[in-house]
């Protein structure tokens, strides 16, 4: 298989993730979409590593996985904190940065 196939696939996955990120309002699903994007990037990294026959790209992919794991942990922690504070699990409702009064009443 040509490497370009893999690259094209990674582009598709990345675009799907990006689209989902914007389209969905649940922070949980948005995190999933972020995973999609990261995986798309990972795929291209591994593909390029194969292209050059060099292990560096794979290490990069590994690091991306670590970052993704961290992001998941923090993101999920935030979601749990939102839930604990009885805030809506809806990204559109969480616009307190814009409206300080709302922030005061919410927290």
């Amino acid at each position: 298989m040509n490497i370009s196939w893999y690259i094209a696939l990674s582009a598709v996955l990345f675009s799907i993730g990006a689209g989902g990120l914007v389209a969905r309002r649940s922070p949980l699903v948005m995190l999933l979409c972020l995973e999609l994007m990261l995986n798309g990037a990972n795929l291209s990294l591994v593909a390029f590593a194969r292209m050059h026959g060099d292990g560096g790209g794979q290490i990069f992919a590994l690091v991306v996985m670590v970052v993704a794991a961290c992001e998941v942990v923090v993101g999920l922690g935030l979601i749990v904190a939102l839930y604990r504070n009885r805030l809506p699990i809806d990204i559109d409702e969480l616009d307190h940065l814009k409206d300080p009064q709302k922030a005061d009443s919410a927290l």
Partner: protein
Amino acid sequence: MITAITPILAHAADFAEGARPEDPAMWGWILLLTPLVGALILGLGHRIWSERVAGLIGTAAIFLAFGAALACLAQLLGMDAEERHVLSGFTYAQAFGVDFRFDIYYDQLAVMMALIVTGVSALIHLYSMAYMKSDRGYTRFFGYLNFFVFSMLLLVLAGNMLLLVIGWGFVGAASYLLISFWYRRSSATRAGAKAFVMNVIGDVALVIAAYLLWHELHTLTIPTLLANADDPFTVMPTATFTAVALLLLVGAFAKSAQVPLHTWLPDAMEGPTPVSALIHAATMVTAGVYLICRMHPFIEISDAASMTAAALGTATLLIAATTALVQTDLKRIIAYSTMSQIGYMIAGAAAAAYSASMFHLMTHAFFKALLFMSAGSVIAAMGGIQDVRRMGGFKKAMPFTYIVFVIGALTLAGFPLLSGFWSKDEIISYTLHRGGAFTIIAAGMYIGAILTAFYSLRAVFLVFHGDPAPEAKELEGGHIAHGDHTNPATGEHEDTEVGFPGADHHIAEREGEMKVAMGTLAFLAIVAGFVQIPGVTHVIEKWLEPVFEDSRYADSIPSVSAQWIGLGVGAVIAITGIAIAYWAYMKNRGVTERWTERFPRANAFLLNAWYFDWLYDRVFVRPVAAFAVFCNKVIERFVVDGIVVGTTTLVKDGAERVRAAQSGLARAYALSIIGGTVVIALYFVVVGK
């Protein structure tokens, strides 16, 4: 670190250099520093010293200084007559050729002045030990007084123009502190501020004069300046000379309360009476005369300046003398007479009668201090009341005070054979001898003399003769009057916890220290004139001769016969004035009231001291205050705040527009990130092709 400390040590050595024992000016340094040490001991230990100890420390310091001044005199006497001057000091703030050094310099003139200052100060300290006893601020008073003497000596001994300004400023500050000594009285604090600000005008003038001298002669060291004044190679442009002379005169006039910078002195009587005696009669206010004598080459070189000085001095002596005629406040009468007498000295010094002026400065210091002291005694007996209309008949109640007051008043009046007689008439005859326009000046001086004789005896008759006042009667009965004290100027109730008159005030009749001080001064007031009798004795003239020998009028001395004629005229005038006063206040009591009723405007004019305060209020104080209001109300609000409001509005409006993008919707931000990424990627794709 060791290397680092070396410069400090070097500086310390440099600093100590000025005061090392083998220093030629050792006695000068001791003279200068003793009062300062006294002030520091009093100030740092004000919680420790009992009142008695504090008074002793303060007085002892000044007596020691007097001893040091005598030692300086002895040192000068031990030198060759031509070489009698000492210069010593250290670098104070020197850069770019501005030789701002801490140099003390003393010659015959400075030592004479230092002797007068320390001598009179010592007696006044002695007097104050008793006089201020009832005052809460006893230690503070002596601390201030010692600081004043230090400042005055700094002024007298300054060997550098800017150091002279420092001394000039320090005496101003000391004067401020002592005028507003009873700081609970708003009239006292206002008077202090007024005196200080007017004196700062003098300081500034002296700084400018110092600059001009430095600019032309490239030094600030006074002896060098004096030596180079006539140097043909460094001769200054005439305009600069006139400017220097006039600026020096502004400094002198501000300090010596001469027209037009005189209005602070009558108000300065708010201070305790010993302060009036020491600072506002005997020493500080005569600093202007000292300055003119010290810097005489620069004054006499400009005819315009010396004529101005003489004219203003005469104007002051006439204005002050006429004002003194109608004043009702005892201390103010004496204050105006001080202005008037300094007018004589200034005019005399301007007429190049330097040794005569210094002579009068000395005798004036004695008899004016004496007058203030005895006035203080009377005021104490009156329980703080200073209005002569309420006094009367103290002759019997206070015989000692009466005698010394009469001696002082007669000396002031120029009664024959008393010291004021010799010194005042010497000034007049020297002035007459200059001729020309100075003849008019001398005529003014004679008019002043008759006025002086009148008002000084007026005070005597009003206070000591006539029907006894209730307080006088009480004193005869062995009691001291106490009253509910209010400040006559403002009507506010006096705070007797801070300031005289306290519960237990003292008068001369009962206090040994006061009697000693006043007796000594009375003795000096009588005999001091005999050192300088025309054709007989020439002590002061001979002593000061080397200082003034470079004067271009040094050889212009009136003949002995002319001086004796002058003395005769002076005696006649003095006795005439005394006789008029006797007629008006003893023979025909009440005649003056009738005059007052007939000429109310003239009386008001004199009572308000020719309306100078009113004029200054309208011309300077109110416009500046109005300008301040204008700045606050208009400039701050519209111009400056306009900038604030303008900028903030601009930023706010701009922010309002940009803020619309801040929807707070995370997804919208994500969208814009993606959009941005697309655009940037597109750019690189396009560029890549």
